């Protein structure tokens, strides 16, 4: 794991929705985390834990107004004078069901929305759209002039993600953006995000409720519950504490659970595997030793 400099620092962050009205809801009550440049971090937590509220602070959709500090790439988000559009271009945020937010008639136009808003020359916009589409696996020639609403669900999802990638962000936040598509599209998308991370050094923040996806993809995990950071560590460390995770309404990937169960029944010493490949090896070892 390459520990670069911290690119996002969150310290004791609090947030209340509809503050000062009778409908006030406390969403965050003390989140602290540090995300380093070039790493791939997972944020997990049950629904309503405050994950979305938290990541919306990272690109200034929500500003810290109460207790707590958010610093992104050296800029304090509580400062009203920072260039918020530059920040949003640097920190790309993809929401849940992003395909529902497509609005242009043609796929290419929708993806070009961000670069056009940046005021780039047409050539540059075109180049960025092409690049972004290729990153998500949409063929530029074939898809750019398709009607947006004729795409399949999975293709729409890719187009929406391409719309954010066209901004060439340094940090990409995926807020449950890979849930609700078919398994093959999901796997393909996860692979492409992983490639972006490895090849271009993109910092990726992956918010998900799928433990499998998190285990497979990220190096480090933060667990948020009831508006607070409750666990953090490498993926393996966090998934080696299943009792705690269950207490927070989460769990561990199935394969991790199987290996933990094998350890509990005395077949092997306690180990935590985080993907199927590692799980396979453990099972093979048991099978081999019991064969002799």
């Amino acid at each position: 794991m390459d520990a670069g400099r911290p690119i996002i620092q969150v310290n004791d962050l609090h947030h209340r929705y509809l503050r000062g009205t009778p409908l006030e809801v406390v969403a965050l009550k003390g989140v602290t985390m540090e995300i380093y440049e070039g790493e791939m971090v997972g944020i997990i937590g049950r629904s309503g834990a405050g994950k979305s509220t938290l990541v919306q602070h990272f690109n200034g959709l929500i500003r810290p107004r109460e207790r707590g500090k958010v610093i992104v790439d050296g800029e304090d988000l509580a400062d009203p004078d920072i260039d918020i559009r530059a920040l949003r271009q640097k920190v790309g945020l993809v929401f849940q069901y992003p395909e529902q937010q497509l609005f242009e008639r043609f796929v290419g136009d929708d993806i070009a929305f961000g670069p056009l808003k940046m005021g780039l020359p047409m050539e540059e916009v075109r180049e960025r759209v092409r690049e972004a589409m290729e990153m998500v696996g949409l063929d530029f020639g074939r898809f750019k002039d398709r009607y947006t609403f004729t795409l399949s669900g999975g293709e729409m999802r890719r187009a929406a993600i391409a719309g954010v990638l066209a901004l060439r962000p340094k940090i990409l936040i995926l807020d449950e953006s890979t849930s609700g598509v078919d398994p093959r599209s999901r796997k393909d998308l996860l692979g492409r995000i992983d490639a972006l991370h490895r090849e271009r050094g993109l910092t990726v923040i992956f918010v998900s409720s799928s433990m499998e996806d998190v285990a497979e993809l990220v190096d480090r995990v933060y667990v948020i519950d009831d508006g607070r950071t409750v666990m953090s560590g490498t993926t393996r460390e966090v998934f080696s504490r299943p009792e705690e995770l269950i207490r927070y309404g989460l769990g561990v990937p199935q394969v991790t659970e199987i290996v933990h169960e094998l350890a509990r029944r005395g077949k092997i010493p306690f180990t935590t595997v985080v993907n199927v490949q590692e799980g396979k090896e453990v099972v093979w070892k048991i099978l081999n030793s019991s064969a002799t």
Partner: protein
Amino acid sequence: MEDFEFLRHITLGQYLPGDSLVHRLDPRVKISVMLFMTVAITFNVSYLANIILLIVCLSFVLLSKIPLGYILSGVKPALPFIIVLAILQLLFYGDAFVPYGTESRTILRWGWVHVTSGSVQLVVVSTLRFLQLLFLASLLTNTTTISDLTSGMEAMLSPFSRVGLPGHELALVGAIALRFVPILAEQLEIIMKAQASRGADLGAKGRLRFIQTTRQMVALIVPLFIDAFRRAEDLILAMEARCYVGGRHRTKRVRFRFQRADYIAYVLVLLFSAAMVAFRNRMPF
């Protein structure tokens, strides 16, 4: 600093749970009270009557224990319109409005501008009326759940079913419309946030951003409409899946029955409104 919290500005139609006297009143009483008061408000144009009516409406708000600031915050988005309208009325209405029993005095005349005692009164009374109606409408929806409101409306419309008025359906349409307001506000918020994340200059600083904002509306309205249609379709399916047919043969889990407080509130407000209408032309100022 930008603010994407639209629900903050939608106070009308938002139910606030509570246990005040107003919350506990029968919805039919609340709807009737609102109707009686509205009649009284529309009939009265004198300063004194409107001050009395405003005080009465304010006392309703106090009784309901809903923060006054919360109801008033709902006016914020409409404030520019109200101010422009008031200024136009003040400057150009001239002699078009002469309250009963008074004579119009010219206060200022300068070219097109013609301010009279009548137009001043009109502006002041309009503002007061606006506040009165806002308090009443907010209170009704802030203290009554949508299902109570629907049942209440339906019960009040049922006598007209003999002449073919589809009371149940009308009440349902109203209820669904109210229910969708916060949902659409939330959806709009998500869409705006998504576009702001992609560099759209939404919710930015500056008061006179409305030209850009209007152009950007198109990009907001397309996904919002698609979402609304999809939700409507889902709702139809969900209702059909529950074999919903509506109409006369539907029974109710909760039957309303007037309590003592209901009778008292009903009679008091009815008498008060009647008096206000009867004495509308005898107010000293």
